[in-house]
C-alpha cells in the first residue's frame, strides 16, 4: 500500500516518466491496433514487431549508440520491409498469407538474434540494454526517451483524428471507399506507416515478442462492449493505458519482474473478463439468453401439447397426466415436470389431484401456438408450393418466433383459413 502511494504521488521523477511513457505507448498502440483489428490483419502487426529487432541491432552496429533517435529509424526500416515482403510473397507465389507472416516473422527475428548475439560477443561499449527490446522495460524509460515517445504518440493520435473517416472506410469496406473517391492506396500506406511506428515505440514497453498483444488485445476486449467505433477506440486506449500503468507499477515494486509480460497479462485478463461478462456480447450473457429461449420454447410446446389433448377431449379444462403428455409428444419427464412447474408459477396451469389443468390464459397461449403452427403450414403449401407432408417440421420451429405483427399479417394474407393442409381446424 505504501509503495502504491509512493508510486502515485509521482514524487520520484523517474516514476513520472515511466507512468507517462507507459500510458503514451500503450494507448497509442491500442488506437492504431483497433484498425488492424478491424481489418483482420492483427498478425501482420506481430510480424512487424519481430522484424523490428534486426533494424534495431543494425542501427546500433552502425551508430554505436543506443539513442532512440538512431534506433527508431532502423527499427522502422526493417519493420516496413517485412510488411512489403509479406505482401510481395502473397502476391507473387502460391504461398498463403499466414505462411508468409510466420516465415518473415521468424526469419527476421532470427536475423535480429544473430545480430544481437554478434553484438554481445563483440566488444561494444554500452551494448547492455539492447536486449530490453526482447521483453521490454517500461521501468527504464527516462526523460529523453519520453520526449521522443511523446512526439511519436502525438503524431499517431493526430493522424488518427485527422484521417479517422478514411481509416474507418478502408477498414470496413475498401471497395466502397474506392468508389467514393478515397485514395485507398495512400490511406493504406499511411495506416501501415502508423502501425509500424506504433510497433516501434510499443516494443519499448513490452518487447517484440508480446507486442502483438498491445495491438490486438485492447481492441478485442473493447469489441465486446460496443458497436461504435469511436467508443471502441476510446475503450481500447483506456484498457491499454490501465495495463500500462499497472505494468509500470509492478516493475516499480518488483524490479526483477519483466514489465512487458505483466502489461500483457493484465490486458488479457481484461479481455477474458470482457469476453465472459460483457453485457449482450459476453459469452455468459449469450448463454443465459439461449437457456431462456430454450425454456420458452419448451414451455410453449408443453402448452401446445395440452391444447392438442384438449382438442381430442373437446374439453380444454380437463386434468391431464404427465404420462399422457409424454405419450402425445416425446419429452423427457424431468424436463417436462420442470416446465409444468414454471408454467404454474406464471399462471398458465393449475395442479389438481388427478393432473394438470390449463387456466384460461394457458389455453389461450397454447391455442395461439397451435394457430400459428397451422397458419404457417397453410402459408407454406399455398405460397411456397411445399407438399403438405413436408411443412410440419418448419412450422414446429417458426411457431415460437412469429411476432404479433407478423401473426396479423399472416392472418390477413391467408384470409383467416378454416383448416390447415391436414384438415385440422385452425383455432382463432
Amino acid at each position, binding site marked *: 500500500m505504501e509503495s502504491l502511494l509512493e508510486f502515485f504521488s509521482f514524487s520520484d521523477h523517474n516514476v513520472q516518466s515511466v507512468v507517462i511513457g507507459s500510458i503514451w505507448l500503450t494507448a497509442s498502440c491500442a488506437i492504431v491496433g483497433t484498425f488492424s483489428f478491424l481489418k483482420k490483419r492483427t498478425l501482420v502487426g506481430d510480424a512487424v514487431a519481430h522484424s523490428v529487432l534486426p533494424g534495431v541491432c543494425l542501427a546500433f552496429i552502425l551508430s554505436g549508440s543506443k539513442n532512440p533517435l538512431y534506433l527508431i529509424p532502423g527499427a522502422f526500416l526493417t519493420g516496413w520491409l517485412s510488411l512489403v515482403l509479406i505482401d510481395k510473397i502473397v502476391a*507473387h507465389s*502460391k504461398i498463403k498469407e*499466414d505462411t508468409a507472416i510466420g516465415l518473415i*516473422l521468424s526469419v527476421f527475428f*532470427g536475423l535480429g*538474434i544473430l545480430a544481437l548475439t554478434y553484438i554481445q560477443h563483440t566488444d561494444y561499449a554500452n551494448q547492455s540494454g539492447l536486449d530490453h527490446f526482447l521483453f521490454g522495460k517500461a521501468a527504464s524509460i527516462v526523460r529523453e526517451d519520453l520526449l521522443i515517445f511523446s512526439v511519436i504518440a502525438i503524431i499517431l493520435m493526430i493522424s488518427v483524428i485527422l484521417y479517422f473517416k478514411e481509416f474507418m472506410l478502408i477498414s470496413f469496406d475498401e471497395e466502397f471507399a474506392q468508389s467514393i473517391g478515397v485514395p485507398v492506396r495512400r490511406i493504406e500506406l499511411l495506416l501501415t506507416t502508423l502501425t509500424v511506428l506504433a510497433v516501434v515505440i510499443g516494443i519499448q514497453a513490452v518487447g517484440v515478442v508480446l507486442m502483438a498483444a498491445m495491438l490486438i488485445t485492447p481492441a*478485442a476486449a473493447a469489441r465486446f462492449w460496443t458497436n461504435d467505433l469511436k467508443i471502441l477506440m476510446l475503450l481500447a486506449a483506456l484498457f491499454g493505458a490501465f495495463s500500462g500503468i499497472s505494468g509500470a507499477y509492478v516493475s516499480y515494486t518488483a524490479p526483477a519482474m*519483466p514489465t512487458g509480460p505483466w502489461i500483457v497479462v493484465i490486458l488479457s485478463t481484461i479481455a477474458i473478463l470482457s469476453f465472459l461478462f460483457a453485457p449482450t456480447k459476453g459469452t455468459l450473457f449469450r448463454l443465459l439468453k439461449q437457456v431462456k429461449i430454450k425454456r420458452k420454447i419448451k414451455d410453449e410446446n408443453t402448452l401446445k401439447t395440452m391444447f392438442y389433448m384438449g382438442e381430442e377431449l373437446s374439453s380444454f379444462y380437463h386434468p391431464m397426466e404427465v404420462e399422457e403428455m409424454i405419450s402425445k409428444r416425446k419429452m423427457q419427464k424431468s424436463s417436462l415436470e420442470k416446465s409444468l412447474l414454471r408454467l404454474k408459477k406464471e399462471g398458465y396451469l393449475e395442479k389438481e389431484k388427478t393432473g394438470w389443468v390449463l387456466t384460461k390464459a394457458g389455453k389461450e397461449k397454447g391455442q395461439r401456438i397451435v394457430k400459428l403452427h397451422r397458419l404457417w403450414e397453410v402459408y407454406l403449401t399455398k405460397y411456397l408450393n411445399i407438399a403438405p407432408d413436408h411443412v410440419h417440421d418448419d412450422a414446429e420451429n417458426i411457431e415460437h418466433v412469429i411476432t404479433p405483427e407478423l401473426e396479423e399479417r399472416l392472418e390477413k394474407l391467408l384470409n383467416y383459413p378454416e383448416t390447415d393442409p391436414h384438415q385440422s381446424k385452425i383455432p382463432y
Partner: protein
Amino acid sequence: MNAFLIILTGSLVAITCGLLGCFLILRKMAMIGDAISHSVLPGIVIAYLVAGSRDSTLMLIAAAITGVFTTFIIEFLNKHGRLQSDASIGVTFTWLFAIGVILISAYAGQVDLDQDCVLYGEIAYVPLDSWITGSGINLGPRALYIIGFVLLLVIFFIVIGYKELFLTTFDPAFASAIGISVTLWHYLLMTMVSITTVASFELVGAILVIAFLIAPAATAYLLTDKFKTMLFLTVIIGVITSFSGYYLAEWINGSISGAMSVISGLLFALAFLFSPKEGIVVKRVKYGFKTN
C-alpha cells in the same frame, strides 16, 4: 565432433519441424503453429516446478496438454466468443506466453530456464549435456536422444496416419464423408506439433521453432506440386539449413539457431526467385515482363 553433434541435432529439429510444417502450411495453420510454439511455455515451466528437474517425459506430456489446450482456447474464442480468428490466435498466445515468462521470473531460483533461452535456445550447449549411464558410460548428448525420439514419433505418426492426414488436409469435406474424423486428426496433429515444439524449445527457442516449422516446408512447396516430394525436399532443405547455419554462426560469432533461421529464409528467397515453376524471375523470363 562438437560441430557434428550440433549440426546433427539441428538437422533433426529441422526435419521433425519441417515434416509437420508441410501439413501446417497446407492447412493454412502456420500461425496456429506459431501460437503453440509460444504458449507451451507455461506448460514447460509448470512441469519444471512439479518435477523439480528437467524430466523430459513429464515435459513432453505437459507440452502436449498445453498445446491442445491452446488450440482449444483459440477455437473457443473464435466460435463461442465470436472473436475473429486472427485476434483469437493473437490474444491466446501472447497471454499464455506472458504467463510463462512471469512464472520464469517468479521462480528464477527453481527453474533452470532464462528468458533469452526461451527466445533463441542454446543449441551450442548440446554437446556439453551428455547422457551418462549409472556405470559411467557416455552415451552422447541428451538432447539428441530426445529430439531423435520425437522425430521417430512424428515419422511413425505420419506413416500410420498418412491417408487420414492427407485427406483431412486437402479435402476435409470428403474426408468426413468417408468417415474420417477431421477434428480428431486436427487435434492429433496439434499434439504432435506441441511435442515437437517442446523438444526443440531448449535447442532453438520459441520463435525460431517457427522458422523450422514454416520455412523449409514453404520452400519445398514452391519447388514441387507433389505432396510426397514436398516432404522429402523439406527433409533435404532442413539438413542444408542446419549445416550452413552452423558455419554462418561460426563465421560471425553469433547465435547458431539465429543463423539457421536466416539461412532458411535465404533458401526460401532463392526458391521464391528461381524455382523452376514458381520463381518470379523464372516466370518473367518465360512469360515476358508484363505478367506478375
